[in-house]
């Protein structure tokens, strides 16, 4: 080793800074609220030869932690094989093909070669979630597509910018195939400008420390990240840990999809084996290879957040057995559920397997759904069409130290939900309540957090409602003898009659008339530890705050309330808990 650790640290901070500035520039200038407000984007630096991740912005959306290196690698391979035109300085490639290292079609990647002395030194790349890329459903989250063509416009890698100048012909093809097209030019400019910021800042870093030193540091930092990840993995005893997680259905065939995972720790590495997971599905709940890998990486990063983000951190992981499963879908399988839903279920499987050897680090399962409810229609008062999205959070899993957080954002995201007041301003809807999903926190010594419970009414015009959610069939799983969190529930009230989607959490184009209502309850987090070990005063507090009913307290926690108004009864509680423990012991 010739570089001292201080220079390494300083260059690491410098690389990070380049990416963070790209993230900032992209968000601040972007048009799409999904990018600007929800930060559904990511920027990074990737190796010239194989696209390996060198550094990525800390504020990037977690699901992109692993996808962009696959996307860049695929692009490099296609260039090398002559399938894509060779780069020149100032070019920017655009691509959104899910099967070429992507996620869903809405995640549009830009990649720009970064030149030093006439040679490509590395790639700068970013991903931004566009609000629409065409297809059957506005916004692209289909619940029942059966081929990728129904999901939107698919772009192979092409040069959108040629030597610094945008190709207006390519852009006009894109514009003609997507909705709210007039605003996309703002996002395209912002996305390209962010890469320019990266170029300027990275040049300054290289000028300061020298190309050779920075190159050497990049190699060394990769090894160090691998070393750091391996040192954390030492906490896991050698052995195999298994788990399963389920998707309610693919949206077309009403049967659950299973993720079967076995994680084997040996020789300082982890092998994630997904073989015997369900076969590729007809509906859009397929994942593609890059997203599946990224989901594993992001789950590991949730468990070990301090490891610096570069390709080295992923080195100790081997992911296998996804071929011929729905976690490695091939063209033309529909994939619009992969980033928002399937990736979260993969993360849940990783948590459920690794909470066994790492009970102090890993939590019980979080709600793990983006809770996508879309309403599209025509507002007669304003004379315009609209598409409204309500995303919502859910409870997080309990953990070794605390109860889970209520209404946390999705595992793969960091975005806030929009305020009700803004929704009602923008769309012809009226919320009747927006509340805690009572009773949904999974029972445990440390209970899960609570989901959300809302009901919204269509005020004017006709509209179609679509849902892409999950955990309707099974709640998020508890850990260490904790109970599962409450399930996701959807009910649609039309002319006063309740209707529940056949697929529970997924359905497309349900007709609504004025006065019709949609009622959604999102999942609570899984409980952690035996509910009978939960301190009775905490259960009493939960009951006094209306989070659980006295009856639930008795069934779930063995805490007894008597009389009216109900009061905690210590003696009966102790007796009931003793009895319940004896029953459990016998069952074991």
């Amino acid at each position, binding site marked *: 080793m010739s570089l001292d650790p201080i220079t390494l*640290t300083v260059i690491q901070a410098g690389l990070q*800074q380049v990416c963070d500035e790209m993230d900032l520039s992209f968000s601040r200038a972007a048009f799409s609220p999904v990018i600007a407000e929800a930060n559904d984007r990511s920027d990074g630096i990737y190796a010239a030869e194989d696209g390996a991740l060198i550094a990525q912005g800390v504020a990037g959306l977690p699901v992109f932690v692993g996808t962009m290196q696959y996307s860049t690698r695929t692009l490099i391979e296609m260039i090398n094989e002559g399938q894509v035109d060779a780069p020149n300085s100032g070019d920017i490639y655009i691509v959104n093909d899910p099967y070429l290292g992507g996620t869903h079609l809405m995640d549009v990647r830009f990649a720009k070669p970064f030149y030093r002395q006439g040679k490509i030194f590395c790639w700068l790349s970013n991903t931004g979630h566009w609000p629409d890329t065409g297809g059957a459903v506005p916004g692209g989250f289909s619940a029942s597509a059966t081929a990728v063509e129904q999901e939107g416009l698919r772009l192979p890698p092409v040069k959108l910018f040629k030597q610094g100048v945008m190709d207006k012909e390519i852009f006009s093809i894109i514009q003609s195939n997507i909705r709210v097209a007039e605003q996309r030019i703002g996002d395209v400019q912002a996305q390209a*400008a962010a890469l320019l910021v990266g170029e300027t800042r990275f040049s300054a870093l290289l000028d300061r420390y020298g190309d050779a030193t920075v190159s050497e540091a990049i190699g060394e930092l990769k090894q160090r990240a691998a*070393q750091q990840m391996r040192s954390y993995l030492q906490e896991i005893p050698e052995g195999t840990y298994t788990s399963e997680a389920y998707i309610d259905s693919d949206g077309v065939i009403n049967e659950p999809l299973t993720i079967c995972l076995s994680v084997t720790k040996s020789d300082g590495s982890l092998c994630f084996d997904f073989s015997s997971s369900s076969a590729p599905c007809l509906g859009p709940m397929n994942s593609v290879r890059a997203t599946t890998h990224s989901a594993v990486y992001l789950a590991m990063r949730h468990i070990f*957040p301090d490891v610096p983000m570069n390709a080295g951190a992923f080195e100790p992981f081997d992911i296998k057995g996804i071929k011929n499963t729905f976690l490695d879908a091939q063209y033309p399988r529909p994939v619009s559920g992969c980033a928002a839903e399937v990736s979260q279920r993969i993360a849940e499987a990783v948590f459920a397997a690794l909470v066994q050897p790492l009970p102090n680090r890993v939590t019980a399962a979080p709600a793990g759904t983006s809770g996508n409810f879309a309403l599209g229609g025509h507002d007669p008062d304003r004379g315009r069409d609209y598409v409204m999205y309500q*995303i919502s959070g859910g409870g997080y899993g309990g953990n070794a130290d605390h109860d889970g957080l209520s209404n*946390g954002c999705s595992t793969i995201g960091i975005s*806030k939900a929009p305020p009700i*007041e*803004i929704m009602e301003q923008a769309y012809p809807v009226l919320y009747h309540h927006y509340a805690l999903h009572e009773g949904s926190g999974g029972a445990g010594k440390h209970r899960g957090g609570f989901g959300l419970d809302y009901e919204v009414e269509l005020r004017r015009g006709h509209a179609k409602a679509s849902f892409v959610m999950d955990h309707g069939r099974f709640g998020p799983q508890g850990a260490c003898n904790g109970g599962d969190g409450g399930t996701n529930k959807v009910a649609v009230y039309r002319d006063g009659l309740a209707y529940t989607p056949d697929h529970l959490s997924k359905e497309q184009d349900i007709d609504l008339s004025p006065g019709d209502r949609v009622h959604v309850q999102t999942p609570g987090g899984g409980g952690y530890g035996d509910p009978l070990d939960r301190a009775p005063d905490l259960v009493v507090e939960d009951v006094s705050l209306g989070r659980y009913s006295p009856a639930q307290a008795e069934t779930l926690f063995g805490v007894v309330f008597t009389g009216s108004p109900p009061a905690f009864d210590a003696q009966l509680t102790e007796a009931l808990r003793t009895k319940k423990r004896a029953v459990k012991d016998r069952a074991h």
Partner: protein
Amino acid sequence: MTESDNRKTSTIVGVDVGGTFTDLVAVSPNGLHLAKVPSTLDDQSSGVLAALDAADCEISALDLIVHGTTTTTNAVLERKLARTGLITTQGFRDILELGRRTRPQAYGMYGQFTPLIPRNLRIEVPERMDSDGHVLTPLDETAVKDAAKALLDHGCEAVVVHFLHAYANPTHERRAVEILRSVWPNSYITAGHVLLSENREYERGVTAAVNASVQPVLSKYIDRLVLALTDQGYARDLLVMNGNGGMVHAQSVAKEAAKTVMSGPASGVMAAAFTGRAASELNLISYDMGGTSTDVALIRGATPSISNEIEVEYGMPIHVPMVDVRTVGAGGGSIARITSGGLLDVGPDSAGADPGPVCYGRGGTQPTIADANFLLGRLRPSDLSSSEQTNRAKNVRHVFTEKLASELKCSAVEAAAAVVKVANTKMAGAIRMVSLSLGADPRDFALFAFGGAGPLHAAALARELDLPRVVIPARPGLTNALGCVVADLRHDFVRTINTPLAELSCSQISSVFEHQVRRGNALISNETVDLECVDTIFSLDMQFIGQTHLLRVQIDDPNMSAIDLQALFEKAYFDRFHVALQNIQAAVVNVNCSVIGRRPPLDLSLLLDKDIRAKSVIEAQTDTRNVFFDNTWMQTPVFSRDALPTDATLRGPAILEQMDSTIVIPPDDKMSTDSIGNLILHIGGAT
């Protein structure tokens, strides 16, 4: 005597209570009084009186006291709040608990959040407005009375009324407040729309809840302080600093108590802006480095950036206009460690004030930034004898060897230099992000360094950020108290209108401005403080339709046409993002106005104590010691800053020591002075 003569003879006191010290600056024609005494956090007023005493102030002879207090900050952060109830729209009592679907950090699926008002004290009543302000369900007045009674039975001292869409139509909130006034035993009643007329129910609700729950705390504190001062014969005004960098009268401050929650850092930034204006350094990055964290703010044209979207901690937004101070997690007490990847990292963990860094000798065992400065010969605790110094140094060296140097395979001193370098790199990166997020290139600014540790790192940071100059004020450790002395009266108004330019009539904006100016003037004319003039500042928060980010555009003429506004916004947008977007309509989201009562300017040269100045630079030198710069020990002269001639110039390396701070001038940097007591460091000899 004319009015202006009268001012010159008056004595003004600024007293600022910080986490550790209470600082005081008293300016009078007879000279300057300074004090720094320990803060008394249980009842800050005794610290205030102790400071007045320490500064030899004759309280009955003072003309004005301006006070910065962290009473409400501490109450919020430690949740020592008044028991508060909420009366809200049917179906929505959980808004304050659900938040906006977030977690505290991007990675790690855990977090803790305790709502300000517990669920059993949140009561729903039938009422509903739509987003246009039309009544859908009339207010159930009986339900309001019943709710009030229930909350009083639960022992609530303060109450919040928070209804959906009250920003669009506040009738229901107003009526509920009227009803409450007849039954509630005190005046601690906050209506959501009053502090903030904005369309985000969580942020508006939290702002109101913060206000209500700190109102009784602040009000009692101010009463105690006024009483104590009156007892000592003080008969004039007491003004209190707000988070917007302006002051309000003590008797009205509790009404909008939430505005004081972030006032601590604001006063330092106001002092920086004021000093910068006097020194013709109009564009500054203020850099206040203390024991556990560093506060950074941007000052353009001698005006600090203001934000309506400050988050005090996770899940606690306070959306009222406040000086936009960002906190960077590095301070003198930040701990250095070796990661399991074998790299050096500094912070965010801190040794805090207790036990503090190893070199404080209070039982600290972790290597910190302050310890690194100590080992490098830059920082020298002044109260130690030389044998104690040697002993302390031995301890610090031992800790650095054990925890860092053995891993890094270098000497303890090299490890210390590395700690400072890594800390500077991280701070510089954070400062860059702050200025870029506000649309500014840091290279266009000078660094204004204060706080106990700011001047230690300022020159190195400026070099890292490519800034030409560092300004170090006369009293770096008393800057916040100075901010109290120089601050103006200030009232900010924000009205959300959220209307596309095309649908906007010209008079719509100007009538909002007119109303805001009227309210501001009325508030200011009630104050008895001497003012030089009253200024108004107009701005609009705008966006292209379809966007969510807002860009603030300063408006000189409150009667501008929609066409001019569109052009003005397009230009501002291009300047900021270098993206030109034609044919996209802009919208006005917020109409903002600040009404500022300017106080007579203070002559900063009063802060200089000219009597103790040496005749030459050489005579001001107190010592020579070895200081580690650029991988080598250098014989470095040490000066008493207070003894330096007022026109001194120096070339680094040099160390300047003063009562409240230590200043490091690295080799190659030049130092000059200005007429009002600032030191200017010219990085790399730049001018």
